[in-house]
């Protein structure tokens, strides 16, 4: 039996070359499906990777109770002072708590891609911010000086928006800023932002002495509950505390859901279409070899080896398509950076398409399924061919 399977499959595979036209149709069809599948889902992977880079589990985010994003939160200066004294917060060598109160607004600035205005996040921070966001470093120019109208920009924002280069003067409303540096932050979402001195930003946006969020560094990994309990049980405060990793995980839920729902629908519809394509391709392959298959059967080959040989051929073609499709997706899209609107933060977030090995594995599996399902009916048909009539065909 096994030797029969090997023999028939061998004949089949060697003869693919003679049916190159219709075989390559199947390969191209499946490659197209896989390309689209990988491309769409690599967007979701890319967004997720950015968010993962943003959420340090040792950092705690404190917002006003009831707020779900920094954008809609608000904390008075008094509240910030109370948070500074809370237990569980790390302190630096001189005993200063590692607490960073921040202000988060958006400004209109044109995108390079379309030339049309988009929402750029502008974050006001104090000197403590650089101890709390400890992965951040300046890669070009210098940091802004406190008390001056100076601004630094994340490297992703610098790539996505018009004219965000060191030395530029930027004017938003009545305030004029000088861009003095570009920073990186380990691929985090802050690389899509502009940063400046919070004390300069507050009056420019009529915010008095108020902030929107407080980032706190934990003294120990298990200190979170202690800090959270002390903040939420304090009657003078109405705040909510969460780990930054949880916060950033939730920030793009909507965006990721849209991409995954749409990607899912497209992948399923295209996949079923491709299975139909594979069915007709394999059917054509079987039909053009009717006499050959009948001859094998007449020589005493069983029908099972014939079924297996057709299925093997279909799977090989499908996997070839899967490899071609994901390779094109990898070359064309992996690392490609773009920005989109994140509805939850009401601002642009830059991300890179991530064609991950896991995604490519899924794509290959998916193409194998398409090949097997598509090959099944033609295989059964080949096995059932009545030998005598088939020998007489064509």
């Amino acid at each position, binding site marked *: 039996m096994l030797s029969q399977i090997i023999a028939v499959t061998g004949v089949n595979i060697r003869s693919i070359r003679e049916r190159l*036209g*219709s075989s390559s*149709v*199947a390969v191209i*069809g499946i490659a*197209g*499906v896989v390309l*689209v599948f990988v491309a769409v889902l690599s967007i979701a992977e890319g967004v997720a990777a950015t968010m993962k880079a943003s959420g340090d589990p040792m950092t705690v985010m404190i917002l*006003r*109770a*009831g*707020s*779900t*994003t920094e*954008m*809609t939160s608000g904390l008075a200066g008094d509240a910030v002072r109370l948070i500074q004294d809370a237990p569980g917060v790390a302190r630096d060598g001189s005993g200063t708590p590692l607490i960073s109160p921040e202000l988060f*607004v*958006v*400004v*209109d600035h044109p*995108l390079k*891609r*379309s030339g*049309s*205005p*988009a*929402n750029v996040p502008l974050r006001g921070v104090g000197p403590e911010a650089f101890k709390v966001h400890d992965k951040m470093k300046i890669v070009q120019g210098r940091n802004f000086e406190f008390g001056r109208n100076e601004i630094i920009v994340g490297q992703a924002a610098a790539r996505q928006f018009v004219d965000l280069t060191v030395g530029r003067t930027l004017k*938003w*409303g*009545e305030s004029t800023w000088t861009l003095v540096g570009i920073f990186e932050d380990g691929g985090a979402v802050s690389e899509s932002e502009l940063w400046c001195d919070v004390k300069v930003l507050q009056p420019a946006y009529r915010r*008095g002495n108020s902030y929107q969020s407080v980032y706190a560094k934990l003294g120990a990994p298990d200190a979170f509950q202690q800090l959270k309990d002390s903040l939420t049980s304090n009657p003078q405060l*109405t705040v909510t505390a969460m780990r930054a990793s949880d916060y950033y995980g939730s920030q793009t*839920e*909507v965006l990721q*859901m*849209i991409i995954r*729902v*749409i990607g899912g629908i*497209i992948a399923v*519809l*295209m996949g*079923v*279409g*491709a299975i*139909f*394509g594979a*069915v*007709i*391709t394999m*059917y*054509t392959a079987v*039909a053009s070899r009717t006499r050959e298959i009948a001859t094998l059967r007449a020589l005493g080959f069983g029908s099972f080896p014939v079924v297996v040989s057709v299925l093997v051929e279909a799977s090989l073609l499908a996997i070839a398509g899967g490899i071609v499709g994901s390779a094109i997706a990898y070359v064309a899209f992996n690392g490609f950076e*773009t*920005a*989109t*609107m994140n*509805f939850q933060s*009401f601002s642009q977030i830059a991300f890179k398409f991530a064609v991950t090995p896991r995604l490519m594995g899924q794509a290959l599996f998916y193409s194998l399924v398409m090949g097997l399902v598509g090959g099944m009916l033609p295989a059964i*048909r080949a096995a059932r061919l009545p030998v005598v009539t088939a020998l007489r065909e*064509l």
Partner: protein
Amino acid sequence: MKFLPIVWRNLLRRKFRTIFTMGAIFFAFLLFGVLMAIRSAFAMGVDMAGVSRLMVIDKVSIINPLPASYENQIRMIPGVTGVTHANWFGGYYQEPRNNFPTFAVDAETWLQVYPKEFEVPEDQKKAFLADRTGAVVGASTAKKYGWKVGDRIPIHGDIYQRPDGGPWEFTIDGIYDSKIKGADKTNLIFHYALLREVIPERSGFRDRYNWYVFTIDNPDRAPEVAAKIDAQFANSPSETKTNTEKAFVSDWAKQVGDIGKIMMGIVAMAMFTILLVSGNTMAQAIRERTNELAVLKTLGFSEGRILGMVLLESALIAIVGGGLGLVLSYTFITLGGDPTGGLLPAFYFPTPMILAGAGLVVALGLAAGLLPAWQASRLRIVDALRRN
């Protein structure tokens, strides 16, 4: 047409192949419909946004609200026929993921500026205008959460909190609908006066609106009116940016990215693949019948007639498969609506795209049949008969 039976018999002789070719084309056009709906959803109703309606926002960012005093100044500009304003409320029902666009507006002028987008029955409108805590909600949102007129619903404020920390309570006085295809029926509007009560005066945010919308008598004058308004508020603490609603919606859609282009790329790729597969199958089907065609020619069928019959055969496959695909995607999109449950309100199949789809179906049928049809019509009888 009298040769339809023979074309039909030809399609039936390999039922399996015909059905699967139709199936492949069917799925391609099902996908076409869904992608076009996604595309229009990402364009966020650019096609519907008014050109005779203009918006005014703060020049720096829409998050900076504009003073209430601007309303009268805008009204004074020649050509302006009606002004209204709105504040973004945010908020959610029960859980943060149940969110929908909620605005605090000046109800009377809002309904005047959006008569077709917010169609509210006259008695409901009267009740809403008289009810301090009243709200009007879109038909899709009302349906999603099972709200009826008269219900009291709690909405948690995200930006604006009640002094007692509890949720806002609104009475549904009306449910708006719209006959415009793809109109956004997910919004909730309530009275700005109610919101104003919780904004402390010292915050500097009381009597300030996120945006104004106004109508003008002549859409051609939009740039001129916009320039006049922006000039009026230039060099003030709140400089403005005025443009047509259409321009704002289109800028907003561009912020999301070139989804439209990506969708077109996918459609092109799917179409190309299907054309290849079905074209190949068609060619195979004709090649198998070479000597039958020769017999027909011997019987006196002209080249043109054979060309026509083969083309008709492939067009039939495309029309049955593609037509069903378009019909089904239309039904699915119209009845099923937004697959994300409220995130893409403008999810619909635009009429021009349906027509384009129908055109593509026919084009696909003809293109797939053209080469084998041409080859068949050019056959020399003797060669063809000898080929067996």
